């Protein structure tokens, strides 16, 4: 009798425990992470605030989680919440360190909130450049040469940086101390092209434009998947692709698990180093790349090269490649500014389906007859 009593009591506790959990989830509006593709981002809508987690925000980070609480301006927040992690939205004044951030802000129509960038010369967006001309966007420098006084003068709500590892906390410590919020954006570490584009949802949350950001991403995802399946259906042979340029006698090779490798594979190409795996670019000996590169049908992303002569001036031996002789050279610098801004690194991150279409058009012109390239151009 006693035993039965105990068992029923235990059961009761277990059941009530479950019930409580269920009740909690029911009470909250939504606890689902709304991020599906990006591996290093999680956004969860809680009651009264949005919890943003940036996972392993820099190269080589393992098990690092940075949590931020996004809340409406003036809303009351629970006491346990670390106020230094609270960001009030919509953000009204932001400084960005990467061009991809600028693209996403522009896509949401919030370029007027952009008060500073790192290296105005690298910006492509005409509207941001116009603002810069009017003196509305400042150049705050880069890394160790960051102009802290200028940042303090601007006093933005938020600085968005990209992960430079533990060092970054050092040079931004002073700024955090002054109450300016810093958030690390890890979009450039995403290897899935759609994963990188999904980071627009972070900006959506920051500007309280979640619906716009979601719909922009959904149409992007839709376009990319449709294009990808069309390519897979139509492709019979996969041309071999090589990338980059040597640095003296070292050639940094993007590994097979990189963003560009995934893009080439989705575009029906056969990247020559697709079987390699590494978190960073790998320094290969030039002779090694040379021998494999002899098999390449196409040569893409050739640094900042604009003509054939620039390739041979880097190393005259590079003209031996069959793809060089056959004129199959394409570079991602069709949309550039005079000073060095390249839209491939800006809006390209937000429009992977356009990148995919470009590369697929290069490798399989028969699938997209008459399609004009957007970010890429032929090198002659």
């Amino acid at each position, binding site marked *: 009798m006693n035993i039965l009593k105990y068992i029923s009591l235990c059961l009761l506790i277990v059941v009530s425990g479950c019930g409580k959990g269920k009740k909690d989830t029911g009470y909250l509006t939504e606890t689902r992470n709304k991020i599906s593709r990006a591996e290093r981002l999680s956004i969860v809508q809680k009651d009264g605030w949005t919890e943003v987690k940036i996972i392993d925000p820099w190269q080589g980070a393992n098990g690092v989680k940075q949590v931020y609480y996004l809340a409406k301006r003036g809303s009351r927040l629970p006491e346990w919440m670390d106020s230094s992690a609270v960001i009030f939205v919509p953000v009204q004044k932001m400084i960005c360190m990467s061009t991809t951030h600028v693209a996403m802000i522009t896509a949401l129509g919030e370029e007027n909130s952009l008060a500073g960038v790192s290296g105005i010369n690298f910006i492509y967006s005409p509207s941001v450049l116009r603002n810069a001309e009017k003196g509305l966007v400042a150049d705050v420098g880069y890394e160790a040469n960051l102009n802290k006084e200028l940042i303090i003068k601007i006093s933005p709500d938020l600085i968005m940086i990209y992960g430079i590892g533990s060092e970054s906390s050092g040079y931004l410590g002073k700024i955090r101390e002054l109450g300016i919020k810093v958030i690390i954006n890890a979009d450039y570490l995403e290897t899935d092209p759609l994963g990188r584009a999904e980071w627009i949802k972070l900006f959506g949350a920051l500007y309280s434009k979640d619906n716009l950001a979601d719909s922009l991403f959904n149409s992007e995802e839709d376009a990319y998947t449709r294009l990808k399946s069309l390519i897979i259906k139509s492709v019979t042979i996969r041309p071999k692709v090589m990338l980059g340029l040597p640095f003296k*006698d070292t050639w940094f090779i993007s590994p097979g698990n990189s963003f560009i490798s995934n893009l080439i594979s989705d575009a029906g190409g056969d990247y020559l180093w697709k079987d390699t795996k590494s978190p960073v670019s790998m320094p290969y*000996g030039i002779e090694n790349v040379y*021998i494999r590169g*002899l098999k390449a049908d196409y040569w893409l992303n050739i640094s900042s090269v604009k003509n054939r*002569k620039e390739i041979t001036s880097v190393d005259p031996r590079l003209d031996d490649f069959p793809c060089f002789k056959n004129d199959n050279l394409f570079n991602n610098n069709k949309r550039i500014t005079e000073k060095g801004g390249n839209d491939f690194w800006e809006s390209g991150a937000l429009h992977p389906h356009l990148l995919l279409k470009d590369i697929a058009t290069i490798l399989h012109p028969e699938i997209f007859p008459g399609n004009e390239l957007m970010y890429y151009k032929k090198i002659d």
Partner: protein
Amino acid sequence: MKTAVRKDLTNEINSGRKARLIFICLFLLLILFLILDIFLGSVNIKPSEVIGAFFNNSHTGFQTIILKFRLPKAITALTVGIALSLSGLQMQTVFRNPMAGPYVLGISSGASLGVAFVILGFSSTITPESLTGFGNWILVAASWVGAGAVMLLIMVISSKVKDIMTVLILGIMLSSGISAVVTIMQYFSNETLLKAYVIWTMGSLGNLTVNQLNVLLISVSAGIILSLFSSKMLNALLLGENYAGSIGLNVRFARAVIFICTSILAGSVTAFCGPIGFIGIAVPHIVRILFKTSDHKILIPGTILMGGAVMLASDILSQLPGSETVLPINAVTSLIGIPVVIWVILRNRQYSDSF
């Protein structure tokens, strides 16, 4: 009395025989490393294919790798090793300072400054792409002038300050100062030129065009010939300037010759391969220990053989044969050179007797 003379004589004959043996060994070592450098690399090529490449009798890709990549690189390594080691030997004698060397005393930095002026300074007239043919001579001449200017400065300093460690510290200060000037130049130069310069500063042996290799070979050969003639002067200078003057050597002339010779050797290498560290300082010490002499008639040929062999070995190591990755050559030469330098510093008290 008579026996003592005879003993001296046999000693000399013995040591002469020993020196000859070491010379033969060093020469064989040099040839061995030269062959290994061509046979080993990040691509595995069968020895038969390597030999076939020279007789137009092998896979075309492999043939290109052997003839266009490995052979010029091996010749460059050999030349660079000889040039840097010789200039190190001459500097150590002229300054009577075991710590002297083109890298440590800032001669390489001076050459960098010359190159920076060419690449970054005259952006409107000379672009990196136009530096072919005659442009290579402009680059190398700027490098000589930069190296020479620093040499001159160090010489003035060392004539005023006798303490070798002080001169060394001043050399380090000088090269830091020059780096600061170059940094400022970089800061104000445009992106493409900056990139050209940054790529240049990463020491490398494998990127010389045939044209550049010719310029390097001609200028280093001139330097080597000049140094072969300078062994008597160096021997005299080693015994002190007063002594050198008393045996009828024109000290000023001797210094000028060695000065020009060192600037040509260190400057030419730096112009095309970037600053390569610690070979120039370490190799002469290894040679002195090996031959147990301070006679430059032996040290100069010994340094030529040893310098070439060490640089070839460094190049083989930097290719990490069998793996696809390569190491920067500068890292390898530093790892080889620094232990020697530390060893010299630690036993400096006994060692400085030979200066």
